[in-house]
């Protein structure tokens, strides 16, 4: 057992923190929230130049040959910086899924494009309505059409779909949960996009497939048996979101403690009042516990160990811990923290978005219950 980063990971963390500190100011974040695309081509190219997109992809495709645990460190820094853009979609949802289930040919074709920052990929999984990541809830259908397929239906909350080059579309190909994943050209005219206006100012989209033809060659993984792979995608994505959230809440703790040391009332720093101290202590406990449970799940994923329970624990825990943290962070910051000028709001909004992404606390509590045999 070891709960500290390796030297290499510390270096990665430092590089990422310096780079993002330089390039990803809150002014930039705001611009990206207000822009149509939600990201900067220039920054995207620079990130590719640093090898970030390919960090956790194998060297044989041009990647950095590091693992999910290393990527976790990078995601944490991105969360800390509130980095906007399609990194998460392209790498965690796209690249790692192609690596997981793609054929050798597909990997050779698509992974280098991801690694070099040439293409943006995302995952079209969730759909309108309120359901919880089960195969039976997939209604977007890929109907067999003369040996090929025709996709119809609506996906919702698809991140960065409007700028994507490829979509991994999870579709029903057989009644009773026969699921197949297709890798489709996102620019196809049979797909319509609408960007939603979200709490985090990120770019979640509605994606409508209208009789879009796809070929057998576009199938990623196994025909009708794709749900297992989709679950692994959700699992990786949930842990990836946890990593971003760890970076987020760690920064919020630091901001809040700094503020408590500086802000004076009754002629003393408010951080000298016991009630504020205990709020901060509670925040620190939530941050550390979220960090360890997140990294435990990331480590297990990285090692290829079965980890449904640990992933569920991490996401369930951080989803509620972050709510507690933000309640206290805002209380300690006072009125300034609820203004649009203050940095705290960027974190507050993003934490809520991450909390509901890829399964919330209620969803994962039930996963834990199943794992306990309840």
């Amino acid at each position, binding site marked *: 057992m070891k709960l500290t980063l390796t030297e290499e990971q510390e270096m990665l963390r430092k590089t990422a923190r310096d780079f993002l500190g330089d390039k990803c100011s809150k002014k930039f974040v705001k611009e990206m929230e207000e822009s149509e695309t939600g990201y900067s081509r220039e920054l995207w190219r620079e990130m590719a130049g640093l090898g970030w997109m390919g960090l956790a992809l194998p060297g044989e495709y041009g990647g950095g040959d590091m693992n999910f645990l290393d990527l976790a460190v990078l995601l944490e820094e991105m969360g800390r910086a509130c980095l906007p853009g399609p990194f998460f979609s392209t790498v965690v949802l796209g690249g790692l899924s192609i690596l997981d289930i793609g054929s050798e040919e597909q990997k050779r074709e698509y992974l280098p494009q991801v690694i070099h920052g040439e293409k943006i990929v995302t995952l079209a999984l969730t759909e309108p309505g309120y359901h919880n990541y089960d195969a039976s809830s997939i209604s977007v259908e890929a109907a067999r059409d003369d040996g090929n397929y025709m996709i119809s239906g609506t996906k919702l909350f698809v991140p960065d779909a409007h700028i994507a080059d490829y979509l991994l579309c999870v579709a029903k190909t057989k009644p009773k949960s026969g699921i197949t994943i297709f890798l489709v050209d996102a620019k196809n005219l049979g797909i319509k996009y609408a960007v939603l206006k979200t709490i985090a100012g990120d770019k979640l989209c509605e994606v409508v497939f209208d009789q879009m033809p796809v070929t057998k060659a576009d199938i990623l993984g196994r025909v009708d048996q794709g749900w297992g792979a989709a679950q692994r995608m959700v699992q990786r994505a949930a842990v990836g979101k946890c990593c971003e959230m760890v970076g987020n809440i760690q920064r919020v703790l630091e901001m809040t403690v700094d503020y*408590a040391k500086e802000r004076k009332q009754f002629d003393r720093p408010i951080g000298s009042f016991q009630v504020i*101290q205990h709020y*901060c*202590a509670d925040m620190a406990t939530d941050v550390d516990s979220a960090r*360890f449970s997140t990294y435990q799940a990331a480590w297990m994923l990285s090692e290829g160990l079965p980890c449904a329970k640990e992933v569920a624990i991490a996401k369930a825990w951080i989803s509620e811990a972050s709510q507690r943290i933000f309640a206290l962070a805002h209380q300690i910051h006072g009125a300034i923290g609820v203004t649009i000028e203050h940095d705290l709001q960027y974190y507050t909004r993003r934490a809520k978005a991450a909390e509901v992404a890829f399964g919330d606390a209620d969803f994962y509590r039930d996963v834990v*219950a199943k794992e306990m045999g309840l």
Partner: protein
Amino acid sequence: MDFGFTEEQNRFRQEVRDFLEEEIKNGYWVPTCDAWVQGFSPEFTKRVADRGWIGLTWPKEYGGQGRSHIDRLVLTEEMLRYGAPAACHWFGDRQVGGAILSFGSEELKKEFLPRIVRGEAYFGLGMSEPGTGSDLASLQTRAVEDGDYYVVTGQKTWTSCASFAQYFDVYVRTDPEAPRHRGISEFIVDAQSPGVSRIPMSDITGTEAWNDVFFDNVRVHKRYLVGEKNRGFYQVLHQLDYERSGMERLMGNYPLFEAIIQFAKDNKLSREPVVRSKLAQLQIEFEVGRLLIYRVALVMEEGRAPNWESAMSKAYSTEFEKHVASVAMEVLGSYGQLAPASKSVPLRGMALHSYLGSKGYSLQAGTTEILKNILAVRRLGLPSS
């Protein structure tokens, strides 16, 4: 990072489990909540000692095994999982032995450590006093030098395991003129010394949980001074870090946790969404807390005393234990109010015992409020209030 255990650690865990299961099978004891502090069994302690499992991390020259703090945590985790009656050796193993090792003279180490390791020396703590709780530096028990002896007079309270302790680790004022933090010293006092008397005190469950311990002109030889004279306050802070460090803060009522999950399964209650959600939440909280405690062991493994780390894990964990007891009472409904000896009582009355007993978990070994102060100042650098 690596959240796994080595092959050797896994084997060791299995070895401990096999031993404990065999003990239960033989009917030597029944898994019980709070058995680490209330389960008095010299025979069990002796059998544990025979396996070399007391003083596991101590150097071999004093009878220890020189093993890692992770190994010790694996051991104690299993003891707690099975609710084993480990109270005779728990305090000596957890903290007094370590204090002697860190601060004691060579003579003291040779006198006590091998005997603790053999399961032959039981300790109680003499820290709190009637007027001294969280503000430990205010203690009034006096020790006055008299030739080769100190003469100790005063009263200690909340002393766990006092009725069977053979020794007390006692903090007393040796310099009343000095600033209060700088006039305290630590002594090992033989419980049989003339002038030592004890009065048992029952906790809210009716269990004899503590004693008041009185010292009436008790003569203690100078060689039983632990560490430097008047440095006792700094030594006790160090010792408290260890007192708070362990899994007993998370798993003191583990037998109840396990039993209530089984009860819910057996009675089909776990299909009810509310019960299901509550039990899953407990499991989440348990596993999160476990990581906080393993972090503490890793800090000790680096050779550092855990400070804010054990403050954090202890404050967190005692809330979990209270939560376990509350959920158990909720799941049991009206049956929760039944006492261990009652007709119709489920789970041997563990829920009632734990519900009442757990009120004290966040008070002993540092109140949660004191622990949060430590976190605020030591971890976060906030100004002292």
